[in-house]
């Protein structure tokens, strides 16, 4: 009994973290029509920034926010000066992000060495929830709360502000949006920066849970990909729902079918792509 309860609660916790990872990815994919193959790198680099800030004694939440801001700047610069040169050419843009992921991975290795880092859980949030034989770390539930807050903030941004309306217009139909005067190119930069910042923020938040180590970019990226494919490209609701579905699939799948561990996540992804490419909540990608 306590096994299933632990798995269920952990599924929600993992889902929350996956949302922080995937929300940005979904927005970028929806608006710019490219799977950002350096998204995992943003997550990892952000986590490393967080590690350095924490080593300097910064408050945990401040470190996470600062890391997000720093990555947003970096993401914005990359978009503005490199991706934009290739505007309209999706394939080279995807490949550019792939090339950058190699660069960032090696830079992280150079600067932070190959040793793993795991910052301590923020002091006020240590401790565990003990109910019905279940012993569950409090911090992971806090991650869910953070994910919900971020989800609400993004929803307000996208559904209730003019900027959000412009983004939605760009996602729906970029050429027409341009024609009515929406500066889609500038939106690209903004959304890319926002996505990068969200990923980095998520990386720091996740660091006490997942630790920070070389190679985590290659582990996180497929998860973001699966969440967004399942939930639907460009849909925040889809990213939210998809994150929790994948959280459950991961936890229960690993426990019940350990031999299918690698397959358990990619098989549903193939099924979705083949049978319903727009995912649960998305619109199709042309």
């Amino acid at each position, binding site marked *: 009994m306590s096994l299933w309860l632990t798995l269920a609660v952990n599924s929600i916790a993992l889902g929350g973290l996956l949302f922080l990872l995937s929300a940005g990815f979904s927005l970028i994919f929806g608006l710019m*029509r490219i799977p950002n193959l350096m998204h995992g790198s943003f997550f990892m680099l952000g986590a490393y920034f967080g590690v350095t800030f924490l080593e300097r004694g910064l408050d945990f939440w401040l470190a996470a926010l600062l890391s997000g801001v720093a990555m947003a700047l970096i993401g914005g610069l990359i978009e503005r000066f490199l991706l934009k*040169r290739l505007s309209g050419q*999706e*394939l080279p843009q995807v490949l*550019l992000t792939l090339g950058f992921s190699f660069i960032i991975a090696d830079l992280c290795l150079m600067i932070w060495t190959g040793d793993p880092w795991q910052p301590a859980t923020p002091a006020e949030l240590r401790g565990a929830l003990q109910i019905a034989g279940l012993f569950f770390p409090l911090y992971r539930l806090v991650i869910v709360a953070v994910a919900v807050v971020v989800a609400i903030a993004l929803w307000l941004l996208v559904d209730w502000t003019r900027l959000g309306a412009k983004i939605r217009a760009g996602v729906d139909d970029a050429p027409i949006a341009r024609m009515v005067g929406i500066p889609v190119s500038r939106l690209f930069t903004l959304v890319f920066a926002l996505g990068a910042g969200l990923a980095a923020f998520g990386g720091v938040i996740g660091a006490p849970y997942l630790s920070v180590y070389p190679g985590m970019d290659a582990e996180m990226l497929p998860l973001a990909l699966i969440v967004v494919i399942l939930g639907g490209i460009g849909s925040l609701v889809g990213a939210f729902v998809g994150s929790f579905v994948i959280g459950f699939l991961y936890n229960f799948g690993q426990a019940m079918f350990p031999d299918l561990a690698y*397959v358990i996540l*990619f098989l549903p992804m*193939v099924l979705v792509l083949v049978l319903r490419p727009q995912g649960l909540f998305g619109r199709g990608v042309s």
Partner: protein
Amino acid sequence: MKRRVPRFAAIGVAAVLLLTLPSWIANSYYVNIASQILLWAVAALALNVLVGYGGLVSLGHAALFGTAGYTAALLLQAGHGHFAADLAAIAFTLLVSAVFAVLSLRSTGIIFLMITLALGQILWGIAYRWASLTQGDNGVNVATRPQLFGISLATADAFYYAVLAVFVLAAISMAIFVGSPFGASLRGTRDQARRMNALGYNVWLIRFIAFLFSGFWTGVAGLLFVYYNQFISPQIMALQTSAEILLMVISGGTATLVGPIAGAAIVVVMKNVISAYVERWNLVLGVIFVLIISFMPDGLIPGTTRIWRHGWRALRARVALSRAGRAP
């Protein structure tokens, strides 16, 4: 007509250099590097069929590469002869390519990319996890290389010539393919799929056959790889490998024949030779690719050809490498 003479001359010079390579490269280490360049060039040429001429970018080809290698290695270990093992390997790879094609050709563009990526990951996971079949991460050793017409391929030079022969066959078949009516219709499906459909061509079937052709040569390259290393392990089927082959194609130049060869040379030389002198070679490799993609999006060969002909200003001209690819 004027352009043909330099091109033939270039091919002639290259042929002479390649044929005599073991005599002017003294060290067997560099002969082995040349073998590696050529075998990866075959893989890159194979992927180029889909990417450059079909407009379909696959990130799952490492799975096909590895499937051929594993099939041959496991059959050899079970005691079968080289001929039987190789034949079975290619046949099985074609089967797997067909399955990949059926699943992924339901879409094009980014969705196609992601389906192939996912399929590649699934096969990698199987190679890793199904240890009772594949021996997992311990890998499979291949005791001997085959004998071609009684000549042992154990030495670097002999193996080099065998790889060169296969490479030449691959290059010729690619050239024939590209110049043929089928090649033209494949390019048609890349540039104007809807019109091709309207004209009565079976776009899906054309792409399917192209996928099989690509899978065939990818499998051949996989065989060359497993014979070169005499070892195979699941890592060869990871996403990293697919990405490297793709980068070879893209960096060299997608819709050319020489491009993938140049791309293969860049990657192999960086990984194996430059890495001896530059500690952060991975970083340099990433930077080179970013530069090539930023400034010469249709590849190094077409890009440098443009500089040669029109000077540095040509780089600033926008070149369209849309999903449709570049017209030859």
